[in-house]
């Protein structure tokens, strides 16, 4: 069953079709939201909220864009709102979260190498308006045009943000690696 057929069935309230849709996207969404907000439990909640919105707004979906783009648009908006909220409150460090996530029943692969750890930390330090397009492009594989539509920004802005995000990430990594070697 293809995605268009699935969403058509979801529009009619078919829970089985919706479960198939969730199975196809849940891990990608949780992973994207986890790296966007830096909190596994919150990422799971946001991913669930994304699917709740997909279910109730299925009738709004128009097949002019792939279904994945639409689902990630909803998730990106939630990630942006969460980033705004988090800017105002004290955030728990990613190391603490990783420590908490080490427990049983949590689906988390701890960073195996120093580079991975540094990369995760550097990514977390990026502002959300750089981090989210970068994750959508380099981790989720969306095109710049798709990201521009998702984030409701001109393609030029997205290109500039991606370039700046990579540059900042590289700088932060170099700084972290220098610190490790000293």
């Amino acid at each position: 069953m293809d995605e268009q057929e699935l969403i058509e069935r979801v529009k009619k309230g078919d829970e089985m079709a919706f479960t198939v849709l969730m199975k196809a996207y849940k891990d990608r969404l949780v992973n994207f939201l986890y790296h966007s907000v830096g909190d596994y439990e919150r990422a799971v909640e946001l991913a669930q909220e994304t699917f709740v919105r997909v279910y109730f707004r299925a009738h709004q979906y128009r097949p002019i864009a792939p279904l994945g783009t639409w689902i990630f648009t909803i998730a990106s908006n939630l990630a942006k709102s969460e980033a705004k909220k988090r800017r105002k409150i004290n955030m728990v460090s990613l190391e603490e979260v990783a420590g908490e996530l080490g427990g049983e029943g949590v689906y988390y692969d701890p960073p195996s190498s120093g580079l991975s750890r540094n990369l995760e930390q550097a990514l977390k330090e990026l502002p959300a308006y750089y981090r989210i397009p970068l994750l959508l492009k380099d981790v989720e594989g969306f095109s710049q045009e798709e990201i521009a539509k998702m984030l409701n920004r001109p393609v030029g802005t997205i290109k500039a943000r991606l370039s700046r995000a990579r540059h900042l990430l590289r700088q932060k990594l170099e700084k972290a690696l220098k610190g490790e070697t000293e």
Partner: protein
Amino acid sequence: MKEFNLKDQLPRVKAPESFEEEVLQKIRVKRAAKKRPLLILIRIFRFRPLLVGALLGILVAGFIVIPSMIKEKQATRAIFSSNLPQLVKVGSSYLSLIESVDFNKDLADIPTKRVVYILEAVNENFISDVKY
């Protein structure tokens, strides 16, 4: 510095096993919450004869009873507030037929819940003050 690949280098997390069930549960809760106002409307609709009766009562009170009460009150007030006696022309002079009297001021000092007898002169030849 060598190029890094975000997709390969970043640790990946997965959704918990209970993910789908939790989403479906949230959907059921939200659907029930959405249906609540509809249920209230249906319940209200069941009592429509009562509602129609109440509505008619309100309309009757609003358009007939209350305006007539207001009119009556206004008419009474108009009589008492007017200081000018009603005059009827008889030949070349005017004769006072009814003189409006406002007892409100006179009765203001009298304690409430007491019976007040107002004694007025009925004989036109004998003029006396009003006694009460």
